[in-house]
């Protein structure tokens, strides 16, 4: 049995999505900018998809810009929004995904002032500290839900604060779109990003919502496609797939989010029964319905992931992007965890294929793997690791 519990990293393409895409790889191969009927056929498909994509987040179709994915869309929002606003100060939360953190760092290298919004122990932006940080900002970027610990952010309040300062507000909704309700009008955001492959669509396509009347500059130049905000021939097949994925996500969201929240809590409960374990992030409504993140004392996260891999269970330490880095999670550190605590985290993210049986299997095997690793560990749960240093961590 293989159990895939890493849906925050990516999801399989839904067969209904794939069926919609297939003709656009062969028979319907036109360039959506061509005048002839091949082109018109592709254009029509792209516009149908745009309507479906817009509907998932409550936007109007002409507010949607297709990109190559979430990262490009975030870069376009942050770099393009900041430049168009002749920005001086950029603000983002301390727990953003690198797709937002890094363009913010780039703006800093180019001379902008950068400030980070702190989060509380549950990984939620501190609204009391926010006004001072946001003061004088040109663009504020806060994710809707965190990819590691699933904490849902108070976007409405933060967008209002940004607007009071005359700043643009951008929201990375890659983890939340399709999993909880996302409505750009209710949230009051100017820019919002979501991605196809997190919601059972193909990789290589994402969307940026740009509120009508908001001006941003392009970061890619060429043939002027996508309102001149994203030049380059439209990735028609993937855009079509993204459209279908959004349609399905919207239709299935109310039922699926309830189902997943129950499985999430079932898994959490079982994992927290393991000795020396603790939860990372909030519980209940403040947490994504599909995210579980637990730390285990005296063991390291990656070794748990590899142990579970041996049982056919796919999990992650935090984010797939950081699994190649040595640093403990910047999200857990921002939440006030000590580095030695931040190394032991394990993330399960549930999805459409997840069953109660799989969740129980994963919990049982996690207990086994943690037990095995603790036999190997020089420490035991409860040991105070903060004062231990034998030096010699040579590079």
């Amino acid at each position, binding site marked *: 049995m293989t159990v895939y519990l890493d849906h925050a990293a990516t999801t399989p393409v839904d067969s209904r999505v794939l069926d919609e895409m297939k003709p656009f790889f062969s028979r319907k191969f036109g360039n959506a900018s061509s005048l002839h009927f091949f082109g018109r056929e592709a254009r029509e498909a792209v516009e149908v998809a745009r309507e479906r994509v817009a509907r998932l987040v409550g936007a109007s179709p002409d507010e949607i810009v297709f990109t190559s994915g979430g990262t490009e869309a975030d870069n376009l929002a942050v770099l393009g929004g900041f430049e168009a606003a002749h920005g001086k100060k950029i603000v983002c939360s301390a727990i953003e995904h690198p797709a937002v953190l890094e363009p913010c760092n780039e703006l800093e290298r180019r001379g902008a002032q950068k400030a980070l919004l702190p989060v509380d122990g549950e990984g939620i932006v501190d609204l009391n500290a926010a006004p001072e940080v946001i003061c004088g900002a040109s663009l504020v970027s806060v994710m809707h839900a965190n990819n590691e610990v699933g904490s849902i952010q108070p976007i409405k309040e933060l967008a209002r604060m940004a607007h009071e300062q005359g700043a643009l507000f951008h929201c990375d909704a890659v983890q939340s779109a399709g999993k909880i309700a996302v409505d750009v009008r209710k949230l009051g955001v100017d820019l919002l990003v979501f991605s196809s492959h997190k919601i059972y669509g193909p990789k290589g396509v994402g969307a940026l919502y740009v509120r009508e009347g908001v001006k941003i500059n392009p970061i890619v130049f060429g043939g002027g496609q996508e309102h001149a905000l994203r030049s380059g021939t439209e990735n028609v097949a993937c855009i079509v797939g993204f459209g279908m994925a959004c349609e399905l996500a919207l239709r299935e969201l109310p039922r699926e989010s309830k189902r997943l929240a129950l499985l999430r809590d079932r898994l959490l409960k079982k994992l927290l029964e393991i000795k020396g374990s603790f939860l990372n992030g909030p519980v209940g409504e403040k947490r994504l319905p599909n995210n579980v993140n637990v730390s285990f004392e*005296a*063991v*390291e996260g*990656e*070794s748990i992931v*590899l*142990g579970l891999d*041996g049982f056919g269970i796919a999990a992650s330490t935090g984010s797939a992007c950081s699994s*190649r*880095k*040595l640093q*403990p999670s910047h999200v857990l550190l921002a939440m006030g965890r*000590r*580095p*030695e605590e931040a*190394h032991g985290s394990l993330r399960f993210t549930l999805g459409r294929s997840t069953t109660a049986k799989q969740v129980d299997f994963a919990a049982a095997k996690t207990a086994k793997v943690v037990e095995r*690793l603790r*036999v*190997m*560990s*020089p*420490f035991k749960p409860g040991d105070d*690791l*903060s004062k*231990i*240093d*034998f*030096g*010699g*961590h*040579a*590079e």
Partner: protein
Amino acid sequence: MDFYSEKVMQHMRKPRNVGEIKKADGVGRVGNPVCGDVMFLYIKVKKNRIVDVKFKTMGCGAAIATSSMITELAKGKTVEEALKITREDVADSLGGLPPVKLHCSNLAADALHAAIQDYLSKREAAGSAKKKARR
């Protein structure tokens, strides 16, 4: 190379010589929990030869695999031979390590050398104590 070799995975899943030697002749402790890796290495020496090695490690897959590998490399070697085991030997014996994980092989080699140094200094102390006693 970003992924672990098959050899690393084997050692990670079935590490050799896990545990502690109660009356070890030398103990090497390296690393710190802030970096995520800590290794304890225990050696038993008879007639200048390492007859038993055990380890306890908290760390990533590479940290566990390199700990396991260094115990295999050191077992049966004379003290002088064991001191010549390098960080590169550990990584090479595992079929290489991802670049970001090379520090784990450093840590494993350091743990062995620390255990041997511990043994040598204990022996020296015992030796001088004997001399004193004779006088």
